[in-house]
């Protein structure tokens, strides 16, 4: 195999490993790159050695049956300082809603969540997964084999419950007073006071 081709495969390896949220098995990499497993294994291990040699602040390591990027152990003090200083410490409203949907409807696919929330949930799912609150619990047996999500034991523990059945039951939904009012409001013709003068046109 030519070096030219190898270089392209290495770039693809780097890209895939960069976005992976858990160790990627060599088999899977080989399949995506359409190269023999042995070749990919070889490329991964030379890449890891090259990073170490170049003295990067990150490493490519083989762990839990796959390869992943992680920070160099010597950089731990900086990483710790960053985590303590630079991380948000509250779940956003959107994230909590998504977590709630997963908790009540698990197992549930990304697209099912999207259709309930009306927005693309990818970013939020990643955050929730990286915090260990949800995880992939299987694949939809149907066409497309979508990844199915569910909550983790850590989630139950944080909430102080034994099982998702301990969450308050969902009864038939009755809209709250605020929702009813907002709906009504939406149907009402605007009051004169709500209407602004149109902006003067600019040429």
């Amino acid at each position: 195999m030519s070096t030219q081709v190898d270089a392209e495969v290495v770039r693809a390896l780097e890209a895939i490993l960069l976005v992976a949220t858990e160790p990627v098995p060599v088999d899977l990499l080989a399949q995506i790159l359409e190269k023999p497993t042995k070749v990919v294994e070889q490329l991964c291990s030379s890449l890891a050695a090259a990073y170490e040699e170049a003295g990067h602040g990150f490493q490519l390591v083989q762990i839990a049956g796959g390869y992943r990027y992680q920070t160099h152990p010597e950089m731990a003090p900086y990483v710790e300082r960053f985590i303590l200083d630079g991380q948000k410490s509250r779940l956003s409203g959107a994230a909590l809603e998504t977590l709630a949907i997963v908790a009540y409807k698990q197992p549930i696919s990304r697209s099912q969540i999207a259709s309930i929330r009306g927005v693309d949930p990818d970013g939020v799912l990643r955050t929730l997964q990286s915090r260990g609150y949800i995880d992939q619990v299987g694949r939809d047996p149907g066409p497309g084999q979508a990844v199915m999500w569910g909550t983790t034991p850590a989630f139950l523990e944080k909430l102080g419950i034994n099982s998702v059945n301990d969450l308050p039951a969902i009864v038939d939904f009755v809209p709250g007073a605020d929702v009813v009012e907002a709906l009504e409001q939406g149907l009402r013709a605007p009051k004169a006071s709500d209407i602004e003068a149109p902006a003067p046109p600019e040429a």
Partner: protein
Amino acid sequence: MAVDVTTPVFEGPFDLLLHLILKEQVDIYEVHLANIVDAYLTEIERMQSLDLELATEFLLIAATLVELKARRLLPGREDVDLDEELALWEERDLLLARLLECTTFKDVGRVFAALADDADRCYARACGPDERFAELMPDLLEGVKPRHVHAAYLRATAPKPEPKVDLFHVGVIKANVSDALAELVDELPRVRRITFRRLTADLVDRLEIIVRFLALLELYKQGFIELEQGQKFGDIDIVWIADQTGVSVGAIAIDDYEG
């Protein structure tokens, strides 16, 4: 949510005018006035009891156009009232200014689309610290109780208050093939190649996805696009193959899928 995808063929009066004047390369007087008025009326109907201010504006623009056109059709009128004439020109200048602003932002929108398409090709690292640092990570669920999760679920699944009057026209989903076609002939020549999945990633309503699909079949039938599907249930690739970029929707005869 469904609102910005059920785009009418023309997004309002400015869009229609811009289309008529620029894309069709005709002057407004050679266009059937009836078509303009019809399009306006459709718009107004669509927005019924939604926004009086805007509806009024439509009427004003329509009236100006009628007036302008009427003058063209009555050559050599000598008895022109000067004040009326001036008022009309003022109205016309205002209209011109607004058309220019509208077309400016239409162009910016295209640049935004190109920027977003480029940016979409890059995927951010979002893995976060590995388990060695788990203990340091602030607990985002600190203070969250089961009842909060319950409340969040109710919030997420509650019918969204939509300040739209669609409730009155129960069950009418405003998606039709010609609207979808209009969007596609604008969009596909620009992106050239796209998967169906990506094309419809924006859509939530199943019906809208189906309508989009029917519109694609229509374009395929008429030789504007090529469709490829590598494997069963695999992504469908859509490739724009027509030469013309400025295909007008009106030029595409479509079967009527509505009703």
